[in-house]
């Protein structure tokens, strides 16, 4: 048995099952969103039309980063996510019905229809996301500060894309977090493209965990979009943060099966690339590991069914929810 296989078997089965179930849920959620998003956008694609208007950035293929990390978090830990946030939100336990209603622009949504898919806030599980690249990193650092000031062992995780690692906020915040020894983890999801620009054309280092040395903190690299390896790397980073040993940068090689946004013509990549990536579907790989560990097909199917049912119920809730009143737009600027 190789060392890497030994590490894989060290993950508790319950955690493996949880990760699998969440990955299925995320994948099915995004697959449904592809369908819903296309409603009302044919024959002419108009981004502002249809059941779900606006930009839509889906995380299909990027599930391992979210589940491998969130397997170690509780609702007391903070997660900030970027413009492509559904996998993080689901893995963090955001209320799926309210999240979907928000994406549908309904008044039952997390932000009463004021935020939409890029701006989801669920303080009950300390989750937020935003549409400005790298901006969530300092927010996570602030949550980490708050945890320390309150004397809890909570940690904060900022998920970002590899493009965000070249923004000022990344460097400013990592220096600050290292200086103050904050329980912060930055997870860089390298899906190979910042919209259309390949990583090698944007980034001066091969992988961003190497930048950890510049701040005097720990770095880890997870290859092959492997949820189990992500689980292990995250376990070390979260333990380090909870123990007061400071921040970590984890970079994970992941795959973006879809365009930057729905409607992206994807002229910047070879037509053969995505079918090739789909051959390495992390969900299928994890399923094989579960079967190898002795789980029955029927049990896996049952998990898949439960995950999908939760998603179906969320979409149904959203579709049946009321829109806000027009003049609700005038509320919530200030809290009274």
């Amino acid at each position, binding site marked *: 048995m190789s060392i890497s296989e030994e590490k894989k078997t060290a993950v508790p089965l319950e955690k493996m099952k949880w990760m699998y179930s969440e990955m299925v849920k995320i994948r099915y959620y995004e697959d449904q969103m592809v369908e819903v998003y296309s409603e009302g956008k044919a024959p002419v694609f108009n981004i502002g039309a249809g059941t779900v208007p606006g930009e839509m950035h889906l995380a299909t293929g990027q599930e391992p980063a979210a589940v491998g990390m969130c397997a170690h978090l509780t609702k007391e830990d903070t997660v900030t996510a970027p413009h492509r946030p559904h996998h993080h939100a689901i893995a963090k336990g955001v209320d799926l019905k309210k999240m979907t209603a928000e994406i549908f622009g309904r008044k039952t949504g997390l932000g009463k229809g004021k935020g939409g898919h890029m701006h989801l*806030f669920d303080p009950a599980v300390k989750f937020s996301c935003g549409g400005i690249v790298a901006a969530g990193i300092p927010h996570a650092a602030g949550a980490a500060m*708050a945890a320390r000031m309150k004397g809890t062992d909570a940690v904060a995780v900022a998920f970002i894309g590899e493009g965000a690692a070249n923004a000022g906020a990344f460097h400013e915040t990592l220096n600050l977090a290292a200086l103050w020894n904050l329980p912060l983890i930055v997870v860089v999801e390298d899906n190979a493209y910042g919209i259309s620009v390949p990583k090698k054309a944007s980034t001066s280092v091969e992988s961003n965990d190497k930048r950890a040395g510049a701040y005097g903190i720990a770095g880890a690299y997870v290859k092959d979009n492997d949820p189990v390896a992500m689980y292990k790397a995250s376990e070390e980073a979260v333990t380090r943060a909870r123990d007061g040993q400071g921040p970590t940068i984890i970079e994970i090689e992941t795959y973006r099966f879809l365009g930057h946004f729905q409607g992206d013509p994807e002229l910047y990549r070879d037509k053969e690339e995505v079918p090739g990536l789909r051959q390495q579907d992390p969900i299928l790989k994890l399923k094989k590991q579960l079967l190898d560990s002795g789980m029955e097909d029927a049990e896996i199917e049952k998990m898949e069914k439960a995950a999908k049912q939760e998603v179906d119920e969320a979409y149904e809730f959203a579709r049946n929810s009321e829109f806000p009143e027009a003049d609700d737009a005038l509320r919530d600027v200030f809290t009274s």
Partner: protein
Amino acid sequence: METAKKRMLSGNKAMAEAISQEMERDPNVFVLGEDIGKYGGIFGSTQGLIETYGPERVLDTPISETAFIGAAIGAAAEGMRPVAELMFVDFFGVCMDQIYNHMAKIPYMSGGNVKLPMVLMTAVGGGYNDAAQHSQTLYATFAHLPGMKVVAPSTPYDLKGMMTSAIRDDNPVVFMFHKSLQGLGWMDQLDEAVGNVPEEAYTVPLDKAAVVREGNDVTIVGIQMMTHYAVQAAEKLAEEGIEAEVIDLRSLAPIDKDTILTSLKKTGRLLVVDEDYLSYGMTAEIAAIAAEEALYDLEAPVRRVAVPDVPLPYSSVLEDFVIPGKEKIYEEVKSLLEEG
């Protein structure tokens, strides 16, 4: 009448006292920014805090405004009450994304589910030859963007009371203090930079203008240094029998329309004075309020005096020319009274 001995403080000591009392009252209050620890803030607004509360609650930061203002946002979302200092308002360019895209918008986009009880305090104002990157007020730049309360107190009493209110407020408050009104030893010594400040904690509302001088002939609206210059001009006008009513706006957002409109009903004439740029600014906003809601009370067109749409120049002769002063206000009022 018995005159109790008044307790006099400079503007910066009044601010620091407010922050200190709130830190004492609420363990969630903390301060972060550049040189706010041992130095006590470049403009003195955090003096004495680190000695009392230590470096865990008074955090000197690296020169990383995006990181520490963003961190203040993240901490506020977790129920802390950070007071972050942006040293000069002019530096907003390096961190405005955190301020207007996040601090100002997260409460709204969350449908009110996330509160950001934080204060972003920052030094504004010119008149001391620091040129275009360190002399702006930028009142309107911030007040234009929804989601932030924007206040600019003019007296030590208000600096303390409004800082206390700002810290206790559950919304993000941009707290602009004027460098000339801090009572700094290394700037012009102005009488207005020192004033009566009660020792006990008190609040001053964040949405109310103050009538600082009553009069029936003309209304002058200003804020911070312009309020003080307006009062000085009004005193000179009074020698000639002209009684100007002077309003200290105090709060740019929300703006107190009622106080302005009530005064206009009485005087029928309006001069708005601003240390910010003329176009698209506070003077235009108040002129619009007058045009929309008090047009028939006006006996003459509204007058505006502000920085004439040029960056703040360095040389005294140039800077004195563009920043309104009491002479300019006096002349403008005299001319306004000849109309209509």
